[in-house]
């Protein structure tokens, strides 16, 4: 009996440790993708405030922010989205479980975003009107994916 209890305790401890390890690795992945998204938002914010007239247009800063956005989108994201790191499964994420059922669709949306950001970075440093003309497509690409795959606030 004592031996049986020891085995049970051992199995339970292993399971707990494994669970903790899995959720720890997920929290790293979640942090990595959220940090990337926040950095995108920071650069888009510089461009957006210029486009809205909240801050003065500066062609150097606009070019840098657009280039940074392109760089953030080209980061290898293969470790950002482990299976099981969805809202409702782990804490601290708004990524909907549907992402993992429709990975190809998500990938296509990411491709559209990258194309819009490339187009923006080609013209952002030209003048304000060019920036204003290209930024809407980037914002739209963010929204399309968030509409389908981002859950409500936690």
């Amino acid at each position, binding site marked *: 009996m004592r031996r049986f209890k020891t085995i049970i305790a051992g199995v339970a401890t292993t399971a707990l440790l494994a669970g903790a390890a899995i959720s720890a690795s997920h929290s790293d992945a979640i942090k990595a993708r959220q940090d990337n998204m926040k950095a995108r938002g920071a650069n888009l914010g510089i461009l957006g405030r210029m486009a809205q007239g909240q801050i003065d247009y500066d062609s150097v800063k606009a070019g840098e922010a657009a280039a940074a956005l392109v760089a953030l989108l080209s980061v290898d994201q293969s470790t950002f989205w482990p299976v099981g790191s969805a809202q409702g499964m782990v804490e601290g994420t708004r990524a909907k479980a549907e992402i993992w059922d429709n990975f190809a669709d998500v990938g296509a949306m990411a491709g559209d975003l990258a194309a819009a950001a490339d187009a923006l970075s080609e013209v952002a440093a030209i003048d304000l009107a060019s920036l204003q003309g290209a930024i809407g497509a980037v914002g739209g690409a963010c*929204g399309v994916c*968030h509409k389908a795959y981002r*859950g*409500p606030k936690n």
Partner: protein
Amino acid sequence: MKRLFWPFLVVLLIGLVVYGLLTRPTFLDRTGFAAQVADATKGKSVFDAAGCASCHAAPMATGEARLILSGGRRFISPFGTFIAPNISSDAVAGIGGWSDYEIANAITNGVSPQKRHYFPAFPYDTYAKMTMADLADLVAYLRQLPASDLASAPHDVSFPFNIRRNLGGWKLLFGRDDWVMTGDIGPELTRGRYLVEALAHCAACHTPRNALGGMQRDKWLGGGPHPSGKGRFPNITPAALGWSKADIMEYLTSGFTPEFDTAGGEMVEVIENMALLDVTDREAIAAYLLAVKSVE
């Protein structure tokens, strides 16, 4: 035992009669509605403000396809799963075979042409405050939208919540014809109040609900859990939002927050509707949200 039989039967019958009276369907003023001269063009802005397509378009429909109100979207809640019905102009699968009055009565009173209560996943409790003119315009606009012959799916709601007659009691308990924002509020706030409290039914999500699904009006727009159990609807009263009028306007137009994050989930579709409104209407909504009582 025999002595108790008749008194028991009388009490039971009285109870049934009272239940029947309290839960019976109510109806829109027929002559008042008939007196309206409908304008379908104006109905489009009522349709956008009321967000009809957000629930009744096919799931994930975009662009022009959002005007095909074939239904099918699923709403998971603690009471079961509601599935948006087909309200396209199809005479069989949709509402094309209904009279104008039947459509109007469904929208404001939550009662079907067969005189059965609708579940309040359909926000008729806020649409009840819609003006007769807007209602008539909306009905005329709905008639012009394309038809879909896709049959409506039945709701998946469990006992006892599937007893539709009880919804008459729900309406009696939680239906309110008074405004939340009161006092001498001027034309912009009056318009904002109409948009927020009646057409756009913001509170349907952003106000917490009690165990029976009634809105907790003392926590108006104070946020609450998402019915799917995942995530929350945020508190959008001044205490929590902390946005300027320009911030709210930008969010309701492009979806960008002041931090240049974007809206997620259902709110993206709400913004798609809000972006179609007159700029003065978005201003009125922003003014309302800045003036509404804070919920801590």
